[in-house]
């Protein structure tokens, strides 16, 4: 695997590190939601029945002072949700390709 570094990205991460943990959590959750939304929107173009995988653990991390545990659990759910949406997207893409 080839890794590459990017100075702007390094700077972004360095600034991210300066933030408070609450902010970090909030930004990460927002990014996750954004990503799911992107995938969902893409999938909708191909399949009007497209769905997003959901689990109640997401609710806990929506509160202001969510614990470390709540946050990690939510991240795990988001990750699976993204994986499934990504699979939906890829399968559409593969179908097109097949066609």
């Amino acid at each position: 695997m080839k890794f590459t570094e990017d100075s702007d990205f390094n700077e972004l991460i360095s600034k991210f590190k300066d933030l408070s943990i609450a902010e970090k959590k909030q930004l990460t959750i927002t990014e996750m939601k954004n990503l799911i939304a992107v995938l969902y929107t893409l999938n909708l173009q191909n399949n009007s029945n497209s769905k997003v995988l959901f689990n109640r653990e997401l609710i806990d991390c929506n509160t202001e002072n969510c614990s470390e545990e709540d946050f990690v659990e939510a991240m795990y759910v988001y990750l699976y949700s993204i994986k499934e949406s990504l699979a939906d997207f890829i399968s559409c893409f593969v179908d097109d390709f097949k066609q």
Partner: protein
Amino acid sequence: MIMMIDNISQNIHDGLAALNRDKVNQLTQLITEEKELGKKELLIKEKKQLFDDFIQQVINYIKENLTEQQMKEILTVLLNWYDDERKLYDDKYRSFAIESDTLYYLLHGLTSAISDKDFVSNTSEIYYKGVLDSNKFDRLIDTDHYFFSANNFYKQLLILSCCKDESLKKRLVQAEIKNKDFMNQFPNSPLFDDNILMEAVKDFFENHRNETESWNFYNELLRNESIPLNSRMKITDLYRMNFPEFYDLEKTNIYPFLVQDYDSAVKCILENNLHDIALNTFLIQCKLKGEDLIKLYNDERLINRLSPNIFMNEYIDGDTQYNILFHTLLKKYALDHNIMDKALLHANDDLIYSVLSHTDSLSYILQNQKFINEFIEKYFRFNHHKANTNAKILEIFKDVLTPEQMNVLFQPGRMPNDIYLPYYLNDKYCYKIFNVYHSEYNPNGVRDKVMDMQQVQNLIHRLYDDNNFLFKTFLPKIISDDIFQFDYKFISLISRYIELQENISQKINEGDSRLAKIGVENEFLTNLKSDPIKYQQWMVKAGYPIDHTAQGKPVDSRICGKTFIQMLKVINDIDPDYIIPYVSTFNKITTTDFWYDVFNDIHVEKEPATLFEQFVINVCQGLDINTITDDQWKILTKVILHDISSSIKNYYISVDMNSLQDVDTYDERRRKKLDDLFTKALNNKETEQAINIFLNKYYDMDINRAREIVETYGIDLDNVKDNQYRKSIDLIEKIKYVLSIKNLQELRNLYQNEIELSLEDTIIFNDSLTKIFGHAFSNSLTSFHDMIKIDNEQMKFPSSVRVYEVPDDFILLVHSTAAYGELQLIENNYKTSWNENDRTRNHGICCSVIANDYFGTAEINDVLLGFNSMSEASLLKSAPYDLFTSNDDVDITAAKKSRFFSPKNIINNTRHTHNEQSIERRELRSELRDKGITNLQPNYVVVYSDMDEKLRNKAIKCAEDFDIPIVYIDKERIVQNESDKIDAMIDQFYKTQDVSKRIDIFSDIYLKHENNRCGLLHDKEELQAKFSTNRIEKLIDNIVNQIIEDKNNTHDYQKYCDCVLKLVEILQREEDKFITCYDMGSHIAFNDIDVNQYIVKMYGEMDNQLNQARETKLTKIIATTQLNDRLVSQELHQIEVRTIENEILNFNNSEFYCGETKNHGLDHIERVTVLASMLGKREFPDNRHAQDLLRLSAELHDSGRENDERDYNHAQRGALLASKVLQDKLNNSEISQNDLHMIQFAIEYHEYDHLRDDNEENLQKLAEKYQISDVDFEYAKKIAQCLKDADALDRVRFHNKKATLDERRLITDAAHELIATAKELLQEYKDYEKNQFVIKILEKSKEQEEKHEEFKQSELKYKMKSKFEKVVNHLMNIVNNGISRNRDSIEGDINEIHRR
């Protein structure tokens, strides 16, 4: 680490298991059971015994079975464990220690084994020598207070090893020489070696060149009697060699510890040629006793040089030596009153008593009238003494005083009434005074001879003229049925005294029918009968005697009586119960000396002092009062109400009343005047004045009265709202609101829309204030319905009484009958005594609220009576502390101000050994009065489970006499219950994750804990032990650590700030309660929590410079004050802050200040200097020289202090030190020698009492001492006075009455102007830490915001080149913003699920 211990322990455990399997099994089973079943209480004792046996076996096992190598291993483990002890303070350790009992006890066993002498001597010396030689050695000694096991172990180890090794011993002594425990034991131990001690002391002196530190240490050594005298002499030599100058200065403090007898003392004094100050210091320190002391104090060579300060001799023994000293001084000073000041102020109860009971001292006292006057004056004026001591003093005086002296003693106001009234009212004593001693009142001087009526009248008139107090006190005793033979003038005279009226009225009522029978009609009765019926009805209903309002008599009684009648007419439709307290008010109007003076012919010509006086003088002469209309009477009533109010003098605004027409237009003219003044106040932006006018106009009260109402009744309104006095409560809230208004526009709007209170509303409002809380009482007290009837036989009560037990939660109102004096039973019956003893003349019954979480009452010496129902009007005074009430038949007065709370909150605010609720003794409920019940009757008698047999039997008798139930309180059960409740709350505390919620739970725990703790202050230790403050400290530690950890993890500074301020508020709220309840008496309770240390820690997280005692704060404070518009802000900007700070820091390096002290630390020095500078600007405008001298004096004024309390002669020492400190300035010609002397003069004078008669004389002496010329004298004096005032102004920091600022003691006019500024300045210092903390938080939060902004920019920058972003942007064009919409819908979905 723990694993290592565990392993070794386990090995031993296994080894022992093999030795005694059964015991170990038993133990293991117990531990298992305990954990599973939670039977901790039951098992702990059994387990302890088992473990003790077990440990002994461990020791034996180790001794017998372990090899040297194994022992070394154990030592290694324990040593490492000790090293890690700090780490073990974390939660891991706690759970380890709490849950792992087995391990704990095993360790205990191990350490016991190792501290065993035989065991250690058998182990290798190499190991512990290694320990001692290693760099761990010093730390071991410094930290010896940590774990008892480690501590004992190392102590033993060290001492044993040191015995064997001289160099180690030396190191040990050097390291421990400042350890007091060590130094107390060392000289008597086998370790002791004089040479080693000397070497260690020498080493200390050489390495501690700071004179003060060495001096203090040196003094400690000299006072240490464990050290042989020879050694102490050697230490003296060592000190002299090292600090020759200091030694010389303070040599007088050294010798007292060395002298053994009178001869050596005199030799020491004379050989060293001690000057007067040194001599007296010597005597203060001197420890001689008995004959030696007598000889010393009576030595002709010394006696004329003694100063009053020798009363400070801490070695004076209460039994004899104080007397000797007193005796000597009395002789020497010929009863000089200055000596008396000192002696009496410094003496405690026991000393005073011992002096008085000493025949010689007493005879000296009794020889001198002036002395007695002084004594009584001083002793009782500053009366903080125990009641029983007062009683003892009276007992002594009673038998020995001459008539003249006795008369002096019984001057009005000399003693608290409750102390000496029993003597007055004791028949034997009363006659002794009256018939024997007061010869001038008893011309015949024969006790048994009955005086004729004329003699009695003459006697009473003379009493009336000479000693009003005696007159009032004795009159009821001598009034007999013969009163009707007195003339009207006389009855009129004595009737002015409301306290006599009931008595007189009773006689009149009794006499009426009898006199009618015999056909006697005197002038008084005729007049009485002509009074309006309604007036009589009201008076009778109110329980007050009938007044003697009549026609044809002096204008006073007619006008006042008429006013009263009109008053009743005005409020005719109000429920009679409402008006009862006002009957009392109006009775005062009609009867006090005040009105007598007003209407007395002699006084008619004088300048009217009040509005009503003005009316009487200008209008009433020759006026037919029948022409006065009802409306006019109403206005006059209103005016009188304000005339008799004490708080109106400055702020109640009225208009002139010079004719009857003026009365008609009074309201209208007053309204106009107020409107004009209001507009003027608005224009001048005088908020306080505007508020005062508002209150005057709409609520008919001035701002002082409004504040008094809010402070007294407005504290706990939220908890009493649910009652019928809602209207009054709303009005208090409104007054509170008006007082808090800062915005003039807001006030203007309110002024335009408010409605004026009517006279009737005002009266009802005033009347209802205490009733609001009286009502809350009647609703809160636990009734019999809530109690449980218990089995008499089982609880060993006779069947003749009903017995109830209190439920788990209860609130009772109780009265301890003999708390402040013995209860004498009349006819051996409690009920008869209650209704007929002398106390029935008092209004107030002193009660306390007790509850399941608070048991504090006044001392229980007889029975504890309980009340569960009474009229709402019965609550007279109330506070969560002792009010020190006293009764004078007429009224009840209190030394402290009332603060009314709901009963539950009385408990929550009582931080004193008991609270005080004064309940009206008269029965006020008309339905009971109609049945002939005139006194409030108790509802039950309280019996505590821990009362002794005597008190219990008294309670049973009392219950039988009254035919009321006993209420039984199983104190142990209730206390245990409370402790369990706290435990449950603590469980909840630890289960709660969120720290903010944890703080909320803590707040409840802390409150409950402190209630219980304070309520048991005078109780058994085992009960007190259940509320150990350690428990609270652990919780606070937990919170503090948690919020600091959260902050470090999250960088959420705002949350940190919120949590810190929330916790600090809780801690300070509790602290404030203690301050509010504080008094100097023996019933004092202290806050056990050191709030400041937590504040320092939490605030210090943001700025570790905060709370550094040796840091000056002025610059930062000035920066903060710029943010507000307080008075002090403007003042501060005019002083030379930089110079003050630099100088103080410079002087402070000399370590003269008690920097870490509470009362006289650097903060105090700064404030006094600032205030002195402000005074300097005012008193010496344009005189830079004076301002500089004043500033320097202020900076150094407390430099001579040695302690934080009353430190005699500190000013003198300060003046001396100033000459050293200012040497540089002198050398640089910044100040002249003359300037230095003026500074020293000012510093030394600041400790003088300037109100003493000999003040000028003292100033002159001081001026001579410092060679102040006559030309400079006034100049220097003024500087000194300014310094004294500046120091006095900072007294606003004290809470107790004796120490706080007494404005009357201020000398300069400017100081009076600066009182408000001084208060604000203090507040700024109080808020300093908090303000700096909040500023730091804001800075940090701002920093975080900036970081966030930087992140956003970096994010934007990266997103510009991110592939993902490009793809998404591309797609966005395709799907028309679908992304954001979908994100919203995802969030919406999540929220929807959350809602469901």
